[in-house]
């Protein structure tokens, strides 16, 4: 049965027959309502209104929808889409509808003294907030930033610094910090170019306007700078990836951590007269394990989101490796065509569960790979659109099909894996998806026109770290010395 919508069509307005489909069980149209004649010049918004109407889904409050045709999001009028793709307006067009993507809105920027290398968030929806249970005080949402100045900072929602980590002379990092994460509402891990992993106790004053970050443990073992770390709060474990291709596994427990390798401690090589212990130095320990699975710099490492005995690491040696942390053995190797600079895991409920890994490359794209041993095709999809290296990735907190990426091109991009097209020959074929939203650096707005033209995409505005949380939204930091917050709540509503 066809349903005429809106005003009676004028003679010159062409109509197109569409067939609505969806993969969301809760958004199914009533039997016999899926086919419709719509005006040829209708766009996304009009189609969304049609779907929400009484005779269709009859939603209590409007749900914004997006529409996929053959894997591409409809961004023009239906008519223009058909013309652009050489399709006849006579045939029935199948439109797959999905909950819409709402553009991320800029909220705030928090200014630093130096480049920001990494960010993490604390909230009742963030990982560390969940791990903290009752100990997380609702409403005390925090951002943790790591900086090239060697310091960690904890920020509140108003952009005030609640706490700054100790400087080098007081037991802090002696070089740039490259990565930092909350283990819980009261514990932080960090690592950087001084080759140490440091564990900090975080405490706030009663008024929650100030706080302290005290070093509690210094972890030695890496012989090269540490690029990335991940934490697992419930077990107190930390993973680290270093630029010599080594992966470290550490515990935050002083009593169960092995002794630190003496040769790596500060002053180990200095003459006796020069040996001067830092008064406030925290206890020093070594790794639970330190392996070298990679032949080139390891750029990222993470715990499997569902199983903290499994780790995934990505490297400039082009590989992603699955490591069994109980045996320190590499269980699976995925070899790609490019140096890998970042990694994140997307949970999958369908298709046998497990995770899908997204790896950011130096070749400006993101590769999606299936880490299961013997998976038919390891490379599942390629995400294209960044104009420079992809340095950080974070899965959506809301669903299994979207993620955010950060790049040296000065942008963060949001990707929706539901929309994919066939790759061109130059792209090497396969399934290709393009970003649905681009988040520019607020700091660069207005400055762009006066800036001399550069051949380097994103010059002066490289983004190094991004986190995506239901409460905070999208939080990113970079070369502009800013942590930038974009509202991302319900950005891609859960299916």
């Amino acid at each position, binding site marked *: 049965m066809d349903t005429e919508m809106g005003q009676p069509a004028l003679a010159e307005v062409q109509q197109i027959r569409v067939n609505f489909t969806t993969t969301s069980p809760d958004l199914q149209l009533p039997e016999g309502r899926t086919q419709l004649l719509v005006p040829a010049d209708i766009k996304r918004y009009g189609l969304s209104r049609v779907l929400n109407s009484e005779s269709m889904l009859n939603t209590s409050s409007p749900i914004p929808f997006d529409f996929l045709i053959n894997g591409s999001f409809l961004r023009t009028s239906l008519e223009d889409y058909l013309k652009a793709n050489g399709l006849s307006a006579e045939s029935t067009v199948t439109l797959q509808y999905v909950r819409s993507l709402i553009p991320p809105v800029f909220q705030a920027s928090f200014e630093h003294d130096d*480049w920001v*290398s990494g960010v993490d968030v604390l909230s009742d929806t963030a990982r560390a907030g969940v791990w903290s249970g009752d100990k997380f005080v609702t409403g005390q949402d925090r951002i943790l930033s790591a900086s*090239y100045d060697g310091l960690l900072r904890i920020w509140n929602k108003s952009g005030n610094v609640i706490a700054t980590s100790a400087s080098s002379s007081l037991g802090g990092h*002696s*070089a*740039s910090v490259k990565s930092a994460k909350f283990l819980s509402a009261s514990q932080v891990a960090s690592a950087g*170019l*001084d*080759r140490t992993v440091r564990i900090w106790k975080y405490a706030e004053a009663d008024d929650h306007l100030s706080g302290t970050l005290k070093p509690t443990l210094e972890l030695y073992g890496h*012989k*090269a*700078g540490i690029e990335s770390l991940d934490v697992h709060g419930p077990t107190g474990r930390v993973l680290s990836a270093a*630029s*010599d291709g080594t992966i470290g596994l550490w515990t935050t427990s002083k009593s169960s951590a092995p002794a630190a390798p003496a*040769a*790596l401690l*500060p*002053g*180990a*090589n*200095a003459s006796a007269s020069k040996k001067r212990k830092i008064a406030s130095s925290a206890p020093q320990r070594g790794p639970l394990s330190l392996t070298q699975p990679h032949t*080139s*710099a390891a750029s990222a490492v993470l715990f499997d989101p569902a199983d903290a005995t499994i780790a995934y690491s990505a490297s*400039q040696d082009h590989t992603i490796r699955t490591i069994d942390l109980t045996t320190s053995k590499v269980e699976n190797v995925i070899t790609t*065509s*490019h*140096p890998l*600079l970042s990694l994140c895991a997307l949970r999958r409920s369908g298709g046998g569960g497990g995770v899908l890994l997204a790896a950011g490359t*130096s*070749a400006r794209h993101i590769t999606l790979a299936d880490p299961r041993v013997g998976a038919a095709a390891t490379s599942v999809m390629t995400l294209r659109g960044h104009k*420079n*290296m992809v340095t950080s990735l974070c899965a959506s907190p809301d669903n299994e099909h979207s993620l955010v990426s950060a790049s*040296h091109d000065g942008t963060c991009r949001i990707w929706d894996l539901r929309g994919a097209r066939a790759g061109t020959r*130059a792209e090497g074929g396969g399934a290709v998806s393009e970003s649905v939203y681009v988040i520019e650096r607020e700091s660069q707005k207005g400055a762009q026109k006066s800036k001399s033209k*550069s*051949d*380097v*995409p994103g*010059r*002066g505005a*490289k983004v*190094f770290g991004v986190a995506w949380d239901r409460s905070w939204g999208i939080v990113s930091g970079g*070369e502009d010395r800013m942590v930038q917050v974009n509202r991302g709540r319900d950005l891609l509503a859960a299916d």
Partner: protein
Amino acid sequence: NIDPASLLPKLPRPEELRPFPTIASIEYAGHEGRVRSVAIDPSGQWLASGGDDGTVRVWGLADGKQQWKVKLSSEDPVDVVRWRPGQETSIISAAVAEDIFFMIPSFGNPELEQTSRDILDAGFGYATNGKQLTTANGAARKDPPAKWTRPGARLEDEGVLLKATVRSPIKSINWHRRGDFFCTVSPSGQRSSVAIHTLSKHLTQIPFRKLPGLAQTASFHPSRPLFFVATQRSIRCYDLQKQELVKTLQPGARWISSFDVHPGGDNLVVGSYDRRLLWHDLEMSNRPYKTMRFHPQAIRAVKFHRTHPLFADCSDDGTLQIFHSKVVSDLMEGPTIVPVKMLKGHKVVNRLGVTDIDWHPQHPWCRVASIAKKTKNTD
């Protein structure tokens, strides 16, 4: 009837020869004035640069962050920066006028810094300063060809721990792969323009007293005890053990600016100020295997990638030309050279464009030096 085109060798299309650098992706901003030289460290993590502001700077290769800096001179530019080969140390050599400075940039790695210090200090035990030494041909010498000293408290505090001073301004430094020998060239140095130095002994020797023309640059063979010296018009290859001239290459250029020996050891590429790029097969003629002209301005530097089949040149016209080069061991078959990419976009100031180039040890990434900045190019 034969179609003449069918007789031409079939070259692969550039897109079949990936990976090679295609875009500029990082700018290392900070130098005041021109950057004269760049070098990537043996681990592939750091980029050293030197320039007109008299500083040597070290940058994170991947993030473009300046992590270390020292001012070597307030009058003279830093003409050359080169890392000592080998990952067990982190030592930069840099030429400023007649001085070669040796420095250890600090990245919070005391072990590496100590090993590096030990390497630089070892030669002080010899304390010869060349005085009682003889030249390669056995004759006694009055004046030492170089003085090896501490550079003074200010520089030592900043990690510059050793200095060697020769008689004339140095324009080229190249290390032997084992990291003990290095050679310097001072084009205005007349009879002592080419020097071979032994770091472990703080020793400097002048291997040749006579060269037909002004020496421009020199380099060690990647695997055999051979030594190459370029004058303006020719490149001479010497056997260091037998102390004899092996061959003289005649590239046909009027003024050679630089050359590099292929990592396989049997081929050599030459760049010239008169805009020519020349490929020599050392097993074949003394004349070039191939002469190429891609630039409207002088070629400043040429460099082979150590692991990928790539080489590149850079020019005063502000561009780089990337080439794919397939070298086969078959004596009957010559190398296949395909230009795959021209990278543009460097500002040309006072007719000086891109002044130096280096490749990453593993990845098909190169770095170049130019006006007030350096840019990374990646695949």
